[in-house]
């Protein structure tokens, strides 16, 4: 008989002999916490219950326990406070302007920010896969999709999604230990633990976690020691069916210098991408945000903003903030023409042209190449691929001629460049992973 069943037997028999009010008050949230050497430890929610059970029901409980398991000699009580679930009934100060202490926005225990509410996340075709995976995880952490790897460009709500999942798990399964960490924190923790000779302690600490959420995991690229430590932490958690949720700005396959064993582990669960929201979703997001901010804005204006800011949810919010401030200064609501004028600066930046240097820099950065490796004539794929992509982007984005591009790459023939461009184009159409890489690079070039 399991401990749970033993206690159920006790409760069932006690229930016959006490009033239901008494039973609900004193026996709710009690359970067996342990059994050793004939002493059974019962966990109770507060010290009132402890005193009551100890003084009033000790003999009754012991008698039932003995009838179930004759080796039980004694009962001890231990207090395990119940975490109360507080409803989110914050009296909202009815303005955004009053600043608060940002230090309190983080939950000390989980490191999650309670403002990331999964219910407020707008779900559309661009993120529904990740959201659905998240919902399954909330139901059964550690069992559904493990690890969940969410990737996508900046400002598309990755952090909102993964923190929202964390907050929901906390709400549903309040005994689960959840920990949210940005990858930088992980790196600092690992570095510190090595410096202070506490690597083992760090590992042990991580092993007590039930749900580990790491944001921007791509930053561990190139950090060999962190990758090694994280590999062990990952394995330990994974084997014990602890949930792991990761976010990154790239597909695991595109994170440079990530060891293969980690890569394969990241790919082993569920990989879900978050892409740009479509027009309708952008309008929906704007509508929700403007309602949150108490901004009264016409539908045409929302459509105008959504049509002109396409790549980033954060910028949508930025545009609304700007309108809000202008409204406050003008002391009257802005109409569509005002808004067009106000958002000129934000929108015109988007159509800004780029330069050869910028494209090359961003490619070097994305693939973590040494400066000149983009220009050496190597047939190795790790060099040839970025090189060909650079040629392609110079052609496509800057409309340079094939021979101009050839000269930039150390006097290559224009046919070489043409070949490179057609290769890239073909790859772009056929390989979805590569498509996303190119889009991400474009996004960086124009950001």
């Amino acid at each position, binding site marked *: 008989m399991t401990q749970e069943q033993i206690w159920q037997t006790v409760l069932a028999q006690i229930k016959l002999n006490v009033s239901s*009010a*008494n039973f*609900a*008050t004193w026996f709710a949230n009690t359970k067996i916490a342990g059994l050793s050497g004939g002493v059974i430890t019962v966990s109770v929610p*507060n*010290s*009132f219950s*402890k*005193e*009551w059970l100890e*003084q*009033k029901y000790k003999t009754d409980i012991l008698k039932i326990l003995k009838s179930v398991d004759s080796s039980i000699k004694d009962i001890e009580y231990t*207090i395990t*406070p119940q*975490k*109360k679930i*507080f409803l*989110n*009934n*914050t*009296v909202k*100060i*009815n*303005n*955004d*302007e*009053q*600043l*608060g*202490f940002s*230090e*309190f926005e983080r*939950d*000390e*225990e989980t490191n999650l920010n*309670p403002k990331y509410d999964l219910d407020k996340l707008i779900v559309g075709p661009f993120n529904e896969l990740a959201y659905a995976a998240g919902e399954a995880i909330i139901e059964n952490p550690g069992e559904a999709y493990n690890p969940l790897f969410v990737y996508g460009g900046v400002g598309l709500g990755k952090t909102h999604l993964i923190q929202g999942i964390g907050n929901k798990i906390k709400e549903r399964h309040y005994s689960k230990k959840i920990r949210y960490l940005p990858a930088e924190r992980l790196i600092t923790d690992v570095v510190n633990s090595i410096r202070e000779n506490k690597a083992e302690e760090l590992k042990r600490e991580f092993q007590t976690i039930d749900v580990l959420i790491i944001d921007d995991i791509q930053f561990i690229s190139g950090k060999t020691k962190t990758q090694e430590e994280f590999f062990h932490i990952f394995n330990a958690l994974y084997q014990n069916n602890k949930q792991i949720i990761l976010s990154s700005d790239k597909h695991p396959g595109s994170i440079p210098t990530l060891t293969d064993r980690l890569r394969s582990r990241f790919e082993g669960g569920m990989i879900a991408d978050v892409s740009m929201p479509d027009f309708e979703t952008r309008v929906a997001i704007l509508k929700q945000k403007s309602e949150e901010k108490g901004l009264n804005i016409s539908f045409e204006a929302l459509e105008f903003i959504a049509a002109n800011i396409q790549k980033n949810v954060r910028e949508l919010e930025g545009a609304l903030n700007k309108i809000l401030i202008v409204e406050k200064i003008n*002391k009257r609501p802005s109409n569509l023409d005002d808004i067009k004028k106000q958002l000129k600066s934000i929108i015109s930046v988007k159509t800004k042209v780029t330069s050869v240097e910028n494209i090359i820099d961003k490619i070097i950065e994305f693939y973590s190449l040494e400066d000149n490796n983009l220009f050496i004539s190597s047939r190795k794929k790790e060099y040839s691929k970025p090189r060909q992509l650079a040629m392609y982007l110079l052609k496509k984005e800057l409309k340079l001629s094939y021979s101009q591009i050839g000269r930039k790459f150390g006097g290559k023939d224009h046919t070489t460049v043409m070949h490179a461009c057609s290769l890239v184009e073909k790859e772009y159409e056929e390989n979805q992973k590569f498509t996303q890489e190119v889009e991400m690079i474009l996004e960086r070039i124009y950001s």
Partner: protein
Amino acid sequence: MKLTILTQELRKGLNFGERLTGRNLTLPILNNVLIEALPNFLKISATDLETGIEWWGLCKTEEEGRITIPAKILSQVVNNISDEKIEIEDKNDTLFIKTKTFKTQIKGFTADDFPIIPQFSKENFIEISAQELRDGLSDVVDIASLSQIRPEIGGIYFVFEKDQVNLVATDSFRLVERTVKSSNYKNSFNEDIKFILSQKTTKEVINALEENVGLVKIYYSESQILFETSLNEVDHPEIDLISRQIEGNYPAYQEIIPKEYKTRIIVDKDILTKQIKLAGLFAGKINEMKIKTDDKNLEISSQDLELGENSSTLEVRIEGENVEISFNYKYILDGIARVKTKNAILELQGASGAGVIKAEEGGDYTYVVMPIKR
């Protein structure tokens, strides 16, 4: 049970007890107080299963015994008795109250069903003047705000260090820290004792310390706290107030208190209060009030689109750079109201940093308030 007690005494005990009753619907006995006749003492206990209170008063006991009685009716009866002494007796779960002019009986219940108030290890304790602790708590208790996503922030944070006590509360827009340094403060623990109590419990503590001129002892266990005051006449506890602590870690609040300032304004507290109240009349829905300094003058202004506007200038001492900043005027009033010296100090760190209000002397009071975004 049979005893005689002064009406005034009994009334006092019932008032403490009654405050905790009547909050629980699942267990009706919690609406009752437990009355026990002990040798020379009458003991009254009440609990809502989060907080428990036990009170002792001197009496003449002829026969020991115990019974529970609905708190409300008992205290209403006792509050209306004008005779000096009361005789109490119980028979068959009924309480008989008799005075020179007056006789009543109230139906009660057996005491066996009354919750047992937890006992404490009294090895180590903290001791402090009840008056001083109460003054400190009164300064912070109202700042805490219950409606928080995070319950630990909604409580009052007690920090008993080796030689001083810090009391902290916040509603996430402002934070107050009050330090109590008392000549008769004692902490027999080897470490700093820190815990969080709910605002409700803290109010009960303040109430329990209300008329006490002596010392209060504080006992600590992992999940519970016991405040104990003593009777003046004899060496015996008067009130034991036991409460559950709020789970969780209080945030590192010291990080919120700015260590430096860019502008420092020293101003007569009463004059400033008056001007802020004036500004408050035109502060609009979000209670916005503007503060602007120019070397010697402090300008306080507010504007309401519908009502009108107001501005006033005060000559004050200003150190550091000039600044323009907006605050919720009510928050500033709350901060200044707790300053006990003639002059208040307002320290600012630019237009979007936190403001700090302090007393001119003492250094035992710090009030941090966040501005309104401009």
